[in-house]
């Protein structure tokens, strides 16, 4: 770390000292792969000039599990269990685009009730994901109190997800043509009253009130905090055209002022039945990325509140063939996941196994902007930017 100080710089408090200081020799530091702020195992090789970042080379791949290769030896229903683990902070949401892609290729119409349950759980996953962000991001910038508050509230959401699916992180709850009968429920087609656990709707309603309250708490605790603003406002601005060219999506894209939300444009789930706002930022800095996610928690709670007010009745699963065979063809289905655009490009040869399954994950593209975005930042701003991108390495490496 310590460069030997030029004795002249120490001796003279003059312009000479300044110019000497500016000529600091380049230094390369290694951030990670084991570092709390890297959200997993990400390594950054940063070339520094003093406190300034000259160049950064992100090194990824520590979490590479080869899911695309593994998918080539698995049947479509079996792949569901894999894709849960891509972005483990919002496991449920990962399943949706794959299910929708297979269902559309097979021309299966998913019953309205299953769709509504999918939508509710997807939005709960979004809240859970964003609460992890809202807890960890201030922590990385030095505030430890919000962590406790946000994670406490997230626990309520995880309990709701667990109540329906039986799993907190990896629900593996979707089936081609609908959803699994809930824990403690009956078979797929019968006992409709039991598919959501008793009291789920009222508990969810109460939890959504808590979500709105924690958002207000975060506003008073974090948003207006002067140190937090000083660390994030105007830091690491990502311009919208660059964000698009790099495939940055989700809240990161909207923070740059692009009002693009796949929930509005794609009908993979019946979002058109509910009212919500697409939240955008103005400057595309770290503060906007924080603010957009905070507001998205409110919007997600708004969607869930509307959805639980009117859950359609009916079966949980469409009639599907006993052996899932997907017709020959190719398609791509994408969804607005908590971290951005997640999609699956399926190449099917008409069999039970995909010939090729390309997994498009949000964090991979979001992170690919790092070498550009980090250039010229100060060392502490590396952490501010990393945290604000809200990535998970499982989602990067797949």
């Amino acid at each position, binding site marked *: 770390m310590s460069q030997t100080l030029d004795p002249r710089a120490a001796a003279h408090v003059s312009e000479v000292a300044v110019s000497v200081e500016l000529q600091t020799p380049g230094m390369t530091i290694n951030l990670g792969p084991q570092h709390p702020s890297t959200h997993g195992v990400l390594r950054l090789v940063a070339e520094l000039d003093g406190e300034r970042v000259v160049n950064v080379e992100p090194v990824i791949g520590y979490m*590479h599990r080869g899911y695309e*290769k593994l998918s080539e030896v698995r049947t479509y229903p079996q792949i569901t269990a894999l894709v849960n683990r891509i972005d483990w902070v919002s496991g449920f949401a990962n399943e949706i685009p794959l299910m929708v892609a297979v269902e559309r290729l097979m021309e299966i119409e998913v019953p309205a009730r299953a769709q509504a349950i999918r939508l509710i759980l997807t939005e709960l996953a979004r809240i859970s994901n964003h609460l992890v962000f809202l807890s960890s991001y201030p922590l990385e910038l030095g505030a430890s109190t919000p962590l406790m508050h946000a994670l406490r509230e997230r626990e309520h959401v995880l309990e709701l997800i667990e109540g329906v699916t039986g799993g907190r992180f990896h629900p593996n709850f979707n089936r081609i043509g609908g959803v699994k009968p809930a824990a403690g429920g009956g*078979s797929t*087609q019968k006992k409709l009253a039991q598919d959501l656990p008793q009291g789920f709707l009222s508990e969810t309603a109460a939890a959504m009130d808590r979500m709105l309250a924690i958002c207000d708490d975060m506003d008073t605790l974090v948003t207006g905090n002067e140190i937090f603003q000083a660390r994030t406002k105007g830091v690491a601005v990502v311009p919208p055209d660059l964000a698009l060219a790099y495939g940055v999506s989700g809240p990161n894209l909207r923070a740059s002022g692009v009002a693009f939300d796949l929930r509005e444009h794609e009908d993979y789930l019946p979002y058109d039945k509910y009212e919500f706002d697409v939240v955008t930022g103005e400057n595309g800095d770290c503060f906007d990325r924080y603010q957009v996610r905070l507001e998205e928690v409110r919007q997600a709670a708004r969607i869930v509140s509307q959805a639980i007010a009117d859950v359609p009745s009916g079966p949980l699963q469409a009639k599907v063939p006993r052996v899932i065979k997907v017709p020959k063809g190719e398609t791509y289905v994408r969804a607005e996941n908590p971290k951005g655009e997640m999609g699956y490009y399926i190449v099917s040869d008409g069999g039970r196994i995909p010939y090729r399954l390309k997994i*498009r994950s949000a964090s991979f593209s979001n992170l*690919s*902007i790092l070498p550009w975005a980090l250039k010229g930042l100060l060392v502490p701003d590396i952490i501010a930017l990393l945290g604000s991108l809200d990535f998970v390495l499982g989602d990067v490496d797949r």
Partner: protein
Amino acid sequence: MRSGISVTTNPPEESETPSEVSTEAEAAEVSGFPDATALAERVAELAGADSWSADFGNAKVRIDQSRWVEAITDVRDGAGLHFFSFLSAVDWSNEVAVGEPLEETVEERYEILVRLSSARNNDAVTLSTDISKTDPRLPTLVGVFGGANWHEREASEMFGIEFEGHPNLSNLYLTDEFEGHPLRKSYPLLSREIKPWPGMVDVEDMPSTENTEGAAAAAVDASETEDES
């Protein structure tokens, strides 16, 4: 609070909803996919390509390898598809070391896929080109989309494709010493070579599939079947 919240009114740039092709639209309605015919046609014209398809809502335009970079630039600017979704490849191979082989013989090749989409509406298109297996190379797209950088590195290490002009085509996921290109169909899945996967039981034909659904199906695990029938 800052009023950074806006309700998007989603301005439709052009009238791309194809109302004139009613039969196509009805067919698309059944499958649940949006109709992509009009978009595919328009993009094919922009790209100067004569081969396109719009099956399963996937507007796919085949570009000749020689026009790869300029065609994609034209599509980006002409159709307003500024969002770079992904770049990847498909190994079309008649002999496979993993998974199931193709039913029909195909021309052996790598197919490069690029997915672009609009940031205003649900326009999205897949652009593809075929490159030979003996000398897989293609000009890089880094100059058109910055995001192509990592995607090309991934395709390069996984399929062994050379992207000419790429600034740094080193391995992204795999170690530098790694030999082979794992997503090629000729690359075996070693753990499966050593031990057959227990999950394969689901892939093999069940005794009663397809033809005799009734009595035999009821005997099998009820949770896996549609037990109403």
